[in-house]
């Protein structure tokens, strides 16, 4: 069965103005997805496999040669950063692509990673935040 994905457990995300903002609550890194990235993200969140993603984008933007390559590269980045994790495909799940805009042209996914919040986790004595994780009960 084709491998599918789900959003990582520590990730919160919102789509605003056609851009996905995702924040990793575990380390404060945050990410922006633009171009066709938000469409890929939405389908991944529904449990799409890489094959289903490619088919959905090719059906929508037919004739673009780089789609398979772009999707593979984006999934690799998302996995490396813990934004998506592999998952068993949900039983009977149907992946539904969002409606396309008229005359919509293909844009390669754009992925940005921002790490400027790490200071808040590790260094900053003014903005104190957790670095300890779940505490262990006293012995």
């Amino acid at each position, binding site marked *: 069965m084709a491998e599918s994905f789900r959003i990582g457990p520590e990730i919160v995300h919102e789509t*605003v103005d056609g851009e996905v903002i995702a924040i990793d609550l575990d380390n404060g890194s945050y990410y922006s997805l633009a171009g066709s990235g938000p469409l890929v993200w939405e389908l991944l969140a529904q449990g799409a496999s890489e094959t289903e993603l490619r088919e959905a984008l090719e059906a929508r933007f037919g004739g673009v040669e780089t789609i398979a390559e772009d999707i593979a590269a984006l999934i690799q980045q998302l996995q490396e950063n813990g934004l998506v994790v592999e998952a068993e495909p949900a039983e009977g799940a149907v992946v539904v692509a969002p409606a396309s805009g008229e005359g919509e042209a293909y844009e390669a996914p754009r992925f940005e990673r921002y790490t400027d919040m790490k200071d808040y986790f590790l260094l900053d004595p003014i903005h104190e*935040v957790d670095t300890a994780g779940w*505490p262990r009960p006293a012995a």
Partner: protein
Amino acid sequence: MPANPAAAQASGGDIADAYFELLGERFEQAVAAVHGVDPVTNTKRRPAGAGTLDLEMAGLPVRLRYAGDALRANLLSPFEHLAAGFAGDPVLTISAFDTASSGIESPTPLWEPVEAAPGTNPVVRLHSERACVLAAAGSRALTAAEPDAGEAIFHLPDAGAIPPSERAAPIREALQLLMAARGRLMTHAGAVGRDGRGVLLVGRGGSGKSTLALSCALAGMEIVADDYILLEPESLRAHAMQSTAKLTEDSAQRLAVPSAAIDPAGFESTLEGPAKTLVDIRTLAPGTLKRQLEIRALVAPTLRPHTTAHMAVPCGLGEDGPVLWPISAAEGLRAVAPSTIVQSGFGGGSSLAVLADLVRRVPSYALELSPDPAVNAAAVDGLVAELG
């Protein structure tokens, strides 16, 4: 030690509930102690009072209880501008005590303490469905709360030596937890405006929020805060907390801040950048500090030169003046959400949806700062007037 996360969570939950109860008992002991009698030796202690400070904060009746005058003077005084009497019971109550004033220690931790490396302040966090505990290893500030019940207890070793994190944002964790349970999101942003309407100043530490906010106050605009506000999402209102703001020495000089407005502790180093001091907005710009503003836009100050690709909006302030340009809602969200969320003790994830809704409802702008604070304030003032 529990072998799996589920067991750890159950155990942590028990600890949080138990520690909240224990800390509450210690607070009551501290109140009895500072009233003059040591409960152990039955002898008179040093003179120090216990009392309450009733406030209206973010539209809610809030009671701050303290055991020891030093807490009132050094920790809670930045909330005095919100003082208000109310009939009936408070919705939120925060009780604060310190060992130096009362002789009462905090309960022995029920968890394995964490060592803080120099300059860091790791925080142990525990929670159950009912209670939350945050124990800061560096500052040794301790907060336990039952958010749904509207109750929190706060402890410091010595209110005569408040750690920088608490001086800059007193009892921040207690307020964040209790206010979140009442639909108010503690948001990392300043807020300034005119006639009850204004803008949020957003961006991470060091982006120029505080300097811009105080520039606006010195220009006679209304100010709610330089760094943290309580956001009421439905009404888009930004509510005030403490009356103090943080400034670098360079900014204090450029704003010509009088020495009377600068905290006697002077400038304390931070690892995010240059040393900062606290200034009291009530002294710096009398009459400008307000309880709330209705938010009409987000403004992200930037020290970077803008690129010509941006659609610059002329400010009518000449070629050397600041440049203000619209940015996308996503850029506005990137400026306000990450630092708000990483500073949330618990439940930061749900904050992103609230802030996303905010940037969908009001426009976002970037402001390239001029070296002249008055000119920057005029640009913000102009935008507020234009937004109506």
